[in-house]
């Protein structure tokens, strides 16, 4: 190998290290947490400028022709550390753009525009960072002691870049493979639902912005120490797209994918095209290169959106189930339950299958501390609840009581105000007037997540599973208070959060077994049937250890046999002390499982009683049952 070849090889290694660090940072944001940061290049630029002004001397060694702030002449490794710190810090204000519930694509556009503008500002304002000419003659690390042109120095630089890349890999792995990483991925899949499960979207997004920003900053610091020059031309908004292409092609959310993408796109592709002999007018090859980057993005998103090395499925080995409830058995399970209609307490005794399932769970699952209901047995009480939508009263003075251990049904024609009532009870919709009393305490003013912590948990009318989390992970994501479910906890490592995780997994396994879904533990939420999704959602709500569940049409769009299976499980839960209020359209389900049933029409309660009672009332029949 000639020395020119050696230098070139080392050059590639150094670039590989730099691009791997940057791509890992971006993959953490875009692939793991779903934060589409089109302004990513700003953070690399910030790191590069920081490292430059930290290592340049104040009077500009270049005869004073450069003007810039700082110039502290600080020794290695201060510039690199500073690059990472500044890259992370300037990410914080961007939380205002992505942290709120701004549509993800709007936030992305905001970041893209920011990247264009920051570049414009730095280009036009010369005193800050020497304007469009940029900074040059940036001292290489330790250049006073060693000769940056020497082969040994180049080897050491490549080694440092690669070691730091390995460190970055270790860091993002530690975060992503923790309960916190699971929360990030849950936010990526469905941020509204993650929010309702108590995930703080703002701090989670801030954390990945800072983590990714610090990695981008570090990569910029290493880069500027090597090429010794940095100017606005090096960080146009389009450079971000190159990194996006790398992450998409490698595989979003996959760390090995980010490494592969970094090697393939910014290093491999951009280097390879350097050897195309220039043809056509000046700049022709460069233009085609950008076209190719655009094509790579679009073509990969079409043909292989998961990338070359897709995100790994996190299997938390499902144990061999002692009880399995394949769909074919549903009827035989539900049959004895039908006999026990209206008598929840008797249900589990009358159903040997369900009883067998519930048995071992009582022993293995930690007993949920379920507060005892107040003396009268009413767990949830709504008093004169009113909800006004711009003059229309969706709910007009409804008072209801839900007693401990009942599976109470809520029926009514479309527009009767059922979902509105449920939302007011859960706190996802504020009341216009009236009171919500849970376990004897007035919770009317409290937000949804606070009620959820008290044990009053709701599900949504639309399926809300996390699609790219396994069923097991969907369940685990709902567990409150896992020590590993914070950035600090995740960084302390597996040993710190393992006990919490193991306990949560044990509870999840027990639930999966109870609902007969053990063999789907490692299936992605997005690959489930409609009914299985419903079950997963109910199980996820149960993982929060609720005292009472508010279910909004849990059986909508579910095969009738599976609907009965769900109903049987709900009855079983109630027999164990759970209280459930369920909105449902299907009268057969109400007939079979719910007692009492509350009938609403036009924003008011029309009647309450068993379905048999309701059918006997002429006004009820007229309002709903025949119409």
């Amino acid at each position: 190998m000639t020395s020119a070849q050696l230098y070139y090889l080392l050059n590639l290694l150094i670039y590989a290290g730099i691009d791997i660090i940057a791509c890992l940072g971006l993959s953490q944001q875009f692939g793991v947490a779903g934060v589409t940061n089109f302004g990513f290049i700003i953070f690399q630029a910030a790191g590069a400028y920081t490292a430059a002004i930290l290592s340049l001397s104040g009077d500009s060694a270049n005869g004073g022709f450069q003007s810039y702030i700082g110039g502290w002449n600080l020794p290695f490794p201060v510039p690199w550390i500073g690059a990472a710190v500044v890259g992370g810090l300037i990410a914080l204000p961007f939380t205002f753009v992505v942290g709120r519930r701004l549509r993800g694509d709007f936030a992305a556009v905001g970041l893209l525009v920011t990247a264009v503008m920051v570049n414009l500002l730095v280009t036009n304002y010369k005193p800050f960072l020497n304007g469009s000419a940029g900074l040059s003659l940036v001292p290489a690390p330790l250049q006073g002691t060693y000769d940056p042109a020497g082969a040994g120095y180049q080897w050491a630089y490549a080694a440092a870049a690669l070691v730091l890349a390995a460190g970055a890999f270790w860091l993002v792995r530690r975060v992503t493979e923790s309960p916190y990483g699971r929360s990030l991925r849950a936010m990526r899949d469905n941020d509204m639902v993650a929010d309702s499960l108590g995930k703080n979207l703002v701090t989670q997004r801030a954390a990945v912005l800072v983590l990714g920003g610090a990695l981008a900053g570090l990569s910029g610091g290493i880069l500027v120490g090597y090429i010794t020059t940095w100017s606005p031309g090096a960080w146009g908004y389009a450079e971000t797209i190159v990194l996006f292409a790398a992450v998409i092609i490698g595989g979003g959310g996959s760390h090995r994918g980010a490494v592969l993408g970094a090697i393939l796109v910014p290093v491999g592709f951009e280097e390879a095209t350097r050897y195309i002999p220039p043809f056509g007018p000046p700049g022709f090859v460069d233009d085609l290169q950008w076209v190719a980057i655009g094509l790579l993005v679009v073509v990969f998103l079409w043909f292989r959106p998961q990338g070359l090395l897709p995100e790994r499925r996190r299997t938390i080995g499902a144990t061999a189930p002692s009880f399995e409830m394949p769909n074919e058995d549903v009827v035989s399970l539900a049959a004895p339950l039908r006999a026990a209609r209206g008598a929840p307490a008797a249900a589990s005794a009358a159903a040997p299958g369900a009883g067998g399932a519930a048995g071992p769970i009582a022993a293995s699952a930690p007993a949920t501390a379920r507060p005892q209901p107040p003396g009268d047995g009413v767990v949830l009480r709504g008093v004169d609840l009113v909800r006004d939508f711009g003059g229309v009263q969706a709910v007009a003075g409804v008072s209801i009581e839900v007693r401990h251990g009942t599976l109470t049904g809520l029926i009514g024609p479309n527009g009767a105000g059922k979902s509105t009532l449920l939302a007011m009870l859960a706190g996802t919709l504020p009341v216009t007037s009236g009171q919500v009393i849970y376990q004897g305490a007035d919770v009317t003013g409290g937000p949804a997540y606070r009620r959820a912590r008290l044990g009053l948990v709701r599900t949504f009318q639309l399926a809300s599973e996390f699609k790219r989390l396994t069923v097991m992970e969907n369940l685990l994501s709902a567990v409150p208070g896992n020590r590993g479910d914070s950035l600090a906890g995740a960084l302390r490592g597996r040993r710190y959060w393992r006990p919490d995780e193991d306990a949560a997994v044990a509870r999840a396994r027990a639930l999966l077994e109870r609902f007969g879904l053990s063999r789907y533990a490692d299936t992605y939420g997005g690959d489930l049937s409609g009914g299985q999704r419903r079950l997963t959602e109910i199980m996820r709500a149960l993982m929060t250890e609720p005292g009472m569940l508010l279910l909004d049409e849990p059986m909508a769009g579910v095969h009738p046999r599976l609907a009965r299976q769900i109903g049987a499980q709900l009855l079983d839960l109630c027999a164990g002390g759970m209280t459930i209020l369920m909105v449902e359209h299907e009268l057969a389900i109400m007939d079979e499982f719910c007692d009492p049933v509350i009938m609403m029409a036009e924003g008011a309660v029309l009647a309450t009683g068993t379905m048999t009672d309701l059918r006997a009332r002429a006004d009820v029949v007229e309002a709903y049952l025949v119409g």
Partner: protein
Amino acid sequence: MSLFLASLGFGLVTAAVLAIAAVGFTMQFAVTDVLNLAFGAVMIASAFVAYALNQAGVNVWLGLLAAAAAGSVGSVLLNQGIYTPFQRRGSAPITMVIVSLGMTLIIEFGLQAIVGGTSVSYTMSQGPTVRAGGLVLTAVQFVIIGLAAVVMAGVHGLLRYTKLGKAMRATSANRSLARNCGIRTDRIVTVTWAITGALCGIAGTVFAINNGSFGATSADLFLVVILAAVFLGGPGQAYGAMLGAVVIGLATEISAAYITPSYKDVIAFAVLLVMMVVRPGGLLGAAVT
């Protein structure tokens, strides 16, 4: 005072160019649900169609019509070939934005590979200087303002008084409901791409005329200004975009006169970010909670 009037005049011209582009962009987004970042690239590509004809001796105002046709055809093809297939697959809005950004690179640099990296200008007369109400503008600038007024009136008439406009508004409000009401939404979407694409082509050409010289990547920064006008009025709000265009157009040019031209687009950028953070629904949109 003369400085103010001069900048006011320039502001009106910028607002006119901006209004055509912003209304096209925002209607595109409203009806098709694609935040088409390639809008700027299509603008410039259309402007180059007019340039090619202009080079062949055709009057630039005829070229403008050709550019409108090119923008229209190009946008329909872009939608049929790229966006619709992705949407049919149920791609998330964010995926569509990434795709549109990829298409931006393909169109912009594909164009640059063909036309080269140097800036070009139309061969045209600026016409006599016209004074009106204290404003001093060239005849061409007055034509641009008039053209924008005609386009705005046309959009207003379309949305307010035609069946097509009604169908577009219905599709924008709720596509599946519109389909259930018997509106052929697929066709409405295609027609919308054709109409907004024509606006895009017109905007690209008047942008190029107003700018004096232009190159393949000239619209990058202008796209930011378009986005600012769109978000100020509320994404998807045609009248909001008109209002936003006037505010942003005047604000950028007047600030350019009094502060410095280098930073005039920064005003647009600041407006955009503030609107996104404080009121993502825009001035005319509903407050988003």
